[in-house]
């Protein structure tokens, strides 16, 4: 069944805005209720938006949102705090640097353990600017070639 562009845009916004507000993605029953649609239509639209927004994915073989970048709906090592509240997780270290654009004018704190030694990495960003980097030598790393293949996305 075809899904119209307007519905996909609306579903996308419901999910992204809920994540920004609460750190948690909605269930498809909530998507359906929010759009005044039947429950099954909400489920179908969820799958359609995940297919359209390639870097997102559902938990395998379920209807649960696992990742909707820049956020992750399951805990990751990339913890995000805004105004002193740690409510969010980033999909990955790279996407953690995009979270700043969802909190205009506010300081976004990113904390993650180094995967080599477990010691902390702390960044602060505001409107795209890096305000603080600890340690100063912190780097990003892409371990495998960039891909948009959903099955591989959690592992690159």
């Amino acid at each position, binding site marked *: 069944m075809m899904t119209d*562009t307007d519905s*996909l*845009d*609306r579903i*996308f*916004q419901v999910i*992204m*805005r809920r994540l*920004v507000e609460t750190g948690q993605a909605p269930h498809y029953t909530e998507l359906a209720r929010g759009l005044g649609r039947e429950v099954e239509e909400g489920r179908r639209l969820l799958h359609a*938006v995940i297919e*359209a*927004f390639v870097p997102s994915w559902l938990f395998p073989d379920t209807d649960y949102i696992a990742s909707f970048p*820049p956020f992750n709906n399951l805990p990751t090592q*990339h913890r995000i705090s805004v105004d002193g509240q740690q409510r969010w997780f980033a999909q*990955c*270290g*790279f*996407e*953690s*640097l*995009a979270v*700043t*654009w*969802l909190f205009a004018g506010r300081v976004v704190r*990113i904390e*993650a353990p*180094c*995967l*080599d*030694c477990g*010691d902390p*990495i702390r*960044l602060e*960003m505001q409107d*795209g*600017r*890096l305000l603080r*980097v600890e*340690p100063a*030598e*912190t*780097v*990003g*790393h*892409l*371990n*495998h*070639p*960039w*891909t*948009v*293949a959903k099955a591989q996305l959690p592992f*690159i």
Partner: protein
Amino acid sequence: MNLFRSEEHVRRWALFNPRSGEGLIALADLAALFGTPSRRHLLDHNYLSFWYPKRYEERRQVLERLGRATPFWLGEN
């Protein structure tokens, strides 16, 4: 797509892929790569239909500017 305390930590990481040397990137470059115009409009009502399709080309342009427009970084469309 992880953060490490330094390049030395990347290379010492138990899961480090020895063919991923070009995968190292400075934070300022990473902030540029994830700060393209489409990233700033995630809450626009037409994000998925209007802004999201621009991502690949934006990313390609930044990678070109950074001297990283390689198959490793460009990947698939």
